[in-house]
């Protein structure tokens, strides 16, 4: 097993765009149609950072839930990093993402975490206030992303990779 590989998990409520973000990151594609995820989808991609070097991210795209159930806890085992995903147009999903982070921290030893607030292309409909994100940024990295346009996606994955290599 390669030493320069890390398991990361996508966590967030359903419909926030986890699978779309992974598709954007891995294949630079976007599908307008919502397709629910059952169980987990696993894929990998090597990211190259300057000056840190390269790291293979094994991405576990876990079915969306507002809280970790037994199955999701099984999927989380062995993860080094977390991408928490919320939908800016649904403030409740931000609370879910933060709840999932707290639950995951009880299961994993010091996971590196990044928060993605997705659907930036719909910013006019966002329910999350800018000030809320300012507060959150004090405790973890936050990226506004759009899986549709690709904005912020690469940067969010790269930031997590960077923290995993630190």
């Amino acid at each position, binding site marked *: 097993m390669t030493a320069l590989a890390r398991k990361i998990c996508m966590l967030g409520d359903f419909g926030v765009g986890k699978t779309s973000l992974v598709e954007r990151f891995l294949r630079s594609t976007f599908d307008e149609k919502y397709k629910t995820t059952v*169980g987990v989808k696993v894929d990998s991609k090597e990211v190259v950072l300057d000056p840190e070097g390269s790291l293979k991210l094994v991405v576990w795209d876990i079915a969306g839930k507002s809280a970790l159930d037994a199955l999701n806890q099984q999927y989380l085992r062995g993860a080094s990093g977390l991408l928490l995903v919320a939908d800016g147009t649904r403030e409740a999903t931000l609370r879910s993402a933060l709840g999932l982070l707290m639950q995951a921290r009880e299961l994993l030893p010091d996971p590196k975490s990044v928060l993605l607030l997705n659907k*930036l292309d719909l*910013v006019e409909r966002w329910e999350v206030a800018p000030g809320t994100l300012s507060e959150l940024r004090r405790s973890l990295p936050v990226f506004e992303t759009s899986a549709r346009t690709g904005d912020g996606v690469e940067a969010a994955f790269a930031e997590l990779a960077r923290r995993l290599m630190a």
Partner: protein
Amino acid sequence: MNGFPAAVERYIERVLRERASPLMLSFDRNWVMLEALGDAARFGIDTAAGSPDVELLRDLFLGLPPGEAHDFPFVSLPGGGTSHVHGVPDGELFHVLLLDASEEFARLRSQQQLGHEAELVSQEKSKALARLRQIRGELENQRSRLEEANALKNALIATLSHEFRTPLTSIFGYVHLLERRISTDISALQALRALRRNATYLFALAENLLEYGRGESGATLLNPSAVDLPALAADLEAMFRPLAEDKGLAFALELDLAAVPNALFDEIKLRQILINLLSNALRYTLRGEVRARLAWENARLVIEVRDTGIGIPPDYRERVFTPFNRGAQHGSKGAGLGLSIVKRLVEQMHGEIHLSSELGVGSTFRIALPALGQATANPIAREFADIPGATERWLKGGRAVVLDDDPDVSGLLALLLSDLGFEVEVVADVAQTVERVRADPPQVLLVDVELPGLSGNAAVYQLRSQGYAGRIVTLSATATEDARNAALAAGADFYMTKPINLEQLVRVLQRATVP
């Protein structure tokens, strides 16, 4: 022992094996694959040693303690198959066992898809209902007369108006800059004046259409500013006197404004009212005169336009204020929109309009408008005209970033800001703006909303959420409360509509740069 007969045991084993179609990959302690047994094609997996599929199967066990059994249900892999994946320790070996779960997966996904879609629709519905409840109170007194054709027409008119506003911003802006720079060449100044007059006329026409397209229920923004009434009167005089002379009519525009306080009005709407009234008066007067008067009476701006035209019969006096109705004014040209729009604008500004007319003698329109507010200082335009270099003293030393994808508009804003003493950087997209502002936060950020891709509001939101504390002025061609609220909610300090009133922009910049 469960006591099943051997034949049943064999049957169960055969059925389960057929359904699960197990695939096993065995690895040594260094994760070197030793063998693969089973129907790999069914899982869409290439089991050749070193293949990406084999690597990914190994990687499933990253970070997990060796020597323990693991069970991951419903794992979808890039090959397309979905399986229950098990890790089975076996002394020095480790087996990865895949059991086909595609049928169960398809059934579950179908159920879950329906459930999630229903939930998302329900959430959207709840939001929509909440919004409807919120606006129902505002709409109670309004009758909804919009039909599909009407909505399409409004969208078209709004789009056209938007398309007009952006180039007009450039025209007005550059004319303004040139007027400030060319002070001695009389013929050049006259040419610029003509450009301004005609652009104003074009703008008024576009605004008439937009105003009509908005319908009775359309929310419009009032844009109070200190209006240079003598300059406005001079503009109107220059615009209409040649038309009157062509028809052999006497024309007069009188000002009685000695006692006007620093009152604020919506200059664009005021200009629109006067242009419409004077156009109408000249159009329907064949001989005699057209006289206009601007006066300050009883704390109101009074506009009076009197003509010796054909007059309006009593039966038609209400009808002239309805769209596309030219009443008894036979042989007339034009859309028949002007007076309906005048009435609407007057009502929007909380004013009153009165018409008196006598058939064959003439008509008088009298409008009284209350001020929309009180200016705290002298009009900026005058200060610029009278005090050379004053602006530089106020604003020198600031840095500004302009986000606009229209090079004409961004060029104009850059010129204006440079004139005002700013060091200016122009950027064309949201990502670049966020990056540049983060790297070197400017004192002022000017943001256009309508951009290809993400809107300017996205840039504002991101910057505010990242702690940018400078002043943000959002510029947009959309003059609605919703658009204004969206921009302010994203974090803008000021919202201005195009065509940009440069004096107002200067005032905003002045406010923005006050510590």
